[in-house]
């Protein structure tokens, strides 16, 4: 899965590998460093300053004319998150459950369906694929009203299970796209050899295919995780009970309950709790993330 597109973003691996040829040097080296460093500061500083602010004492975080660095480091803002709604612990648990459910569900459905779509012809295959393409065109935001009613009738409204099922479904078009590509890349000779040995469809899938499409599975899993962890709109509409909120929706409690008197330190702590897992996962698995983004060409 080292591709021309993904490798460059995996900073450390290529940063020092090959010297730039002269034609790439539109700018003198010093100017290039200055511009890039300034831009990097613009992109990263809001995250860093917010992190620092979340580590101030609540009073310091609330003070006018803020300082950049905390006078003294404190975890009080994070402790205060316990007092938000039913407590930050429940919201983290909800988010983790929904994200894991979405990841597992999406991976299972997209690999099985990707295998079926790519390696078999079946009645209605073209139509089914057209419908899935249509899902890319009509995203969740456009069908939220009827979806709310449908979930209501199924008894799945205001439920983390319902939300997870919705996330899985709307993650499928992209995931299926990635998995179809992955299965298409499996050499035909390997399949034929397995068939000669009398492998069944299931054995073929598990022993021949799955090991070979692993990079695709990781991409799909990553995207499902980010989508479910960060999603706001569907969670806002489909969950009514405070105790069922996921992290992004729980953040609204920080703003709402204290309207006019927002506890800024607590808010930053909440932002950090929802943000840091994404940053870490991205840092570790970024080449899969970027590969997926490019193969989708979308979202």
């Amino acid at each position, binding site marked *: 899965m080292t*591709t021309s*597109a993904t490798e*460059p973003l995996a*900073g*450390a691996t*290529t*940063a020092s590998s090959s*010297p730039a040829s002269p*034609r*790439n040097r539109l700018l003198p080296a010093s100017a290039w*460093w200055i511009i890039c460093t300034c831009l990097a500061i*613009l*992109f990263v500083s*809001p*995250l860093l300053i917010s992190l620092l602010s979340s580590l101030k004492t609540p009073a310091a975080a*609330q*003070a*006018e*004319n803020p300082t950049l660095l905390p006078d003294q480091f404190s975890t009080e803002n994070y402790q205060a998150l316990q007092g938000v709604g039913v407590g930050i612990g429940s919201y983290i648990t909800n988010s983790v459950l929904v994200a894991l459910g979405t990841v597992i569900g999406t991976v299972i*459905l997209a690999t*099985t*369906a990707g295998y*079926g779509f790519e*390696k078999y*012809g*079946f009645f209605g295959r073209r139509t089914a694929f057209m*419908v899935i393409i249509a*899902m890319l*065109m*009509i995203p969740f*935001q456009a*069908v*939220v*009203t*009827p979806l709310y*009613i*449908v979930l209501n009738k*199924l008894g799945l409204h205001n439920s983390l299970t319902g939300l997870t099922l919705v996330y*899985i479904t709307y993650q*499928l078009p992209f995931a*299926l796209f990635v998995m179809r590509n992955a299965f298409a*890349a499996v050499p*035909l000779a390997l399949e*034929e050899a397995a*068939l000669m040995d009398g492998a069944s*469809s299931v054995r073929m899938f598990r022993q021949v295919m799955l090991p070979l499409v692993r990079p695709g599975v990781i991409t799909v899993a990553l995207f499902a995780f980010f989508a479910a962890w960060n999603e*706001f*709109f569907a969670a806002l*509409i489909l969950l009514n009970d405070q105790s069922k909120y996921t992290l*992004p929706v729980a*953040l609204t409690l920080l*703003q709402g309950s204290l309207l006019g008197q927002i506890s800024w330190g607590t808010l930053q702590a*909440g*932002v950090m709790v929802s*943000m840091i897992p*994404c*940053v870490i996962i*991205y*840092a570790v698995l970024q080449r899969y993330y970027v590969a997926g983004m*490019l193969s989708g060409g979308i979202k």
Partner: protein
Amino acid sequence: MAETKEIAVNSSGRKALAPRSSRRSRRSGPRRSQTVGALWAAPALIMVAIFFVLPVIYMVYMSFQNWPLLGEHTFVGLRNYTDALQDPRFLEPVKFTLVYTLLIVPALLVAGLGMASLVKAKRRGSGLFRTLFFLPVVVGFAAAGYLWLWFVNPRVGPLPQILRDLGFGTLQDPWLGTTSGALLVVCLMVLWKFSGFTMLLFMTGMQTIPDDIVEAARVDGAGRWRMLRSITLPLLRRTIALVVILTTAGSLLAFDQFFVMTRGGPNNHTITVVYAIYRQSFSSFRLGYGAALSVMLALVLLVISAIQLRLLRSDDDD
């Protein structure tokens, strides 16, 4: 048209992934059973049927009804649609969403293009800068919105403080207190959060520009500006089209950033189309009306996506 293959090739860097080869493998491959294939695909298709196909059909049905949250719904024909076309609570958001789109799409385009040209070459540090520029993309919209809400707060926010330190003391009014200020702040936030994404699209587009063309132009004495105008931009036109379409579709669906940062204010001047649908369906509980608005939004998105698909398909043809 070799330069236009970015999507097909970059999907894995291997030609083997192109649709053509997959079709061949299905035809000439080992015997395939119809039923077995359908069984493999069934679980995913059932989900799609329940949570997508059914709601879409239901949406069209609902849009012809007066549909309160509780109680009976009644058929009203096209009234929801004709109402919508005269309803300022829908038309104003349409206008605002278009203004927002017209601002943010060019901004993301230029930022992505500029950043991609900066870090596309392999040189010491470029990999690190790419990673840093891209970092905000992985942050959720809600978290990013709350971060910026604080970041620009006139009392406690770091940005006004920095401006005060630099001597711009007069900028102390709440920036989110005026419509244009709020729009500007949201655009800044989205630019911060999303230009890493357009950068990435442009980087892959630029990788497909053949080196010899660039070399030839340089030998001919083309300057930096001439190079951009005569080589880079024409050869990137498909990437540009892709970026414009993706960011347009994205901004037409904008909701999170406005819900979090402006709550639609001041005076409901920053309500987007999706926000208007949300209010009609889930605050006013006019679900039939909300469905009619959704149908219109979906139609617009269908048109945009059809253009997108056509562009991607002509990429595969060459």
